[in-house]
């Protein structure tokens, strides 16, 4: 994998995605080009059905494009097997989902730890890293709680800790503030901003939330599966 600072971390080149719904063809992406650089704090926005979540899913190797190229750190994902793709998601990509998607049977600590376990990190190091991460996201003392014992905002903070635990190249966050109240949304954004600023974690959001768009240093607007505007801020 290419690890130079000059090349983009993730890149979509002329990507199309067509879904079939019975006899109907839905064109979610129509030749989308998008390049994400290291340490970006960017957001993809657009109306419902514009293709922003599809773009994130394809960039995160969760879905395959109908045509076009998807590159992660210079590697063409189309050439990778199912198993290698799962290793890539484990080691290089972090996900934060709108609905948190924590494992209900695991505690906050175990949820945040799961990627490190998959990576084969030894238990002592796992514990040290996860405890540090949970402290960073403000969950000190709540490590042993299960998701149903945490608020929505707290669950999303566990999800953020899980997403960055494995030191991914990029964190893809799909509507991360959609299910939390304003105060928690601001707090989550503070956390992610701090991680981006202090640890250099690359974030790409898919969002409707104006608060996210205000904080993002780059906002890409997608309409009808194509980039309509790409607004970079200082």
């Amino acid at each position, binding site marked *: 994998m290419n690890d130079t600072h000059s090349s983009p971390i993730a890149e979509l080149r002329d990507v199309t995605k067509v879904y079939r719904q019975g006899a109907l063809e839905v064109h979610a992406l129509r030749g989308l080009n998008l390049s994400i650089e290291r340490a970006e704090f960017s957001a993809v926005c657009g109306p419902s059905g514009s293709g922003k979540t599809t773009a994130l*899913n394809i960039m995160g190797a*969760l*879905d*395959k494009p109908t045509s076009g190229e998807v590159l992660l750190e210079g590697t063409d994902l189309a050439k990778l097997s199912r*198993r290698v793709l*799962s290793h890539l998601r484990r080691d290089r990509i972090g996900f934060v989902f709108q609905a948190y*998607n924590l494992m209900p049977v695991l505690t906050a600590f175990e949820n945040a730890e799961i990627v490190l376990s998959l990576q084969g990190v030894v238990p002592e190091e796992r514990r040290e890293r996860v405890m540090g991460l949970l402290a960073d996201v403000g969950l000190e003392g709540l490590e042993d709680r299960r998701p149903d014992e945490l608020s929505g905002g707290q669950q999303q903070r566990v999800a953020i800790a899980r997403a960055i635990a494995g030191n991914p190249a990029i964190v893809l966050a799909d509507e991360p503030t959609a299910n939390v109240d304003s105060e928690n949304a601001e707090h989550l954004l503070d956390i992610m901003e701090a991680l981006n600023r202090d640890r250099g974690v690359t974030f790409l959001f898919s969002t409707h939330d104006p608060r996210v768009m205000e904080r993002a240093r780059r906002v890409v607007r997608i309409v009808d599966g194509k980039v309509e505007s790409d607004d970079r801020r200082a």
Partner: protein
Amino acid sequence: MAWRNVWRNRRRTLVTIAAMSLALLVMILYAGLMAGYFRDMERNILDLEVGDLQVFAQSYRDNPSLYTRIEDPDGLLGSLEAAGVQASGRLLAWGLAAGEDTSSGASFRGVDVERDTQVSKIHREVADGEWLDPADPKGVVLGRRLARTLGVKRGGEVVVLTQGADGAMAYDLFRVRGILKGIGDATDRAGLFMNEAVFRELLLVPEGAHQIIVRRSQEQPLEGVADLVRSVAAELDVKTWRQLLPTLASMLDSGRSAMMVMFVIVYIAIGIVILNAMLMAVFERIREFGVLKAIGVGPFEVLRLIVVESAIQTGIAVAIGATLAVPGLYYLSHTGIDLGGMSMMGIAMDPIWRAEASPETFTQPIVVLLCIVAVAVIYPALKAALIEPVEAMRHQ
């Protein structure tokens, strides 16, 4: 995680485990009862009536005659004993038995009382009175229907009338020493057992035997023993019980096949229940599997997680089912089910139906259950392992 997943939906898990445990319990008891049924049926045939093999003089079976005998039964019995099988000779004849008011055709069987106990357990099947005793030469034992026909009871008198080897009328008065339980149609209806010495004296048959009954140990294969006996008794007619009772042998074989068909049907039904439970357990969590795959859990790990979850449930079910089966099988193998006496194809069945309790009684249903679970879990596990993460996460 697998252990916690198993218990997250406690009620469904308990229902699944209960279904599997119950199925296993039923299958173990059913397997034990059916094995016991066939074991007892075969044992009755062999122990009480025919033995494993019978040896006759050539042509005797085609034309049973007092004069067609095995010439040197003692020599043959010695050879068979030296070859490692138990054997005893019998004398056979037909005639008339008469009670006080009625008479009936009877099959007279002259028995070497001491030796016969090594090849037959009929001496244990006396319902009323006692088995033959050389010290009581005039004591005979009757089949239960013959006794009823003649209207005699234990201690009653029976006149035996037949033709001796010299062609003259032979008759004598005997005392009923015992009346048998139900053995089989032929014995029940006409069997009249007497001491060998008395038979020889009555029918003027000083030497020879009409029939030699041979028994083998359980380890010895039937055909192997048959070959052995044929090599010792080359000039004689050697028949296995399967040749003597082909209909019954084939009925036993087809009974065992029918039992296997029943097993398959029951197992398929169990398999559908387990498949349904596994499908529910996997598909209601398909979104979770999508998330696991999204964060880097590989297809094999997902497969392993589901297999481990079902292995935990199956392990608990096997432990419960097998544990419950132990007292059940103990009861069925010791006390059994009282059928009140019945016969099949002329062979008496034990009035008590007892199960067979052996390691196979447990291992076969357990192995089959494990195979069913493996087959039932493979589809949902593969489905979860191979589904695209995004497709799984769209699942509601």
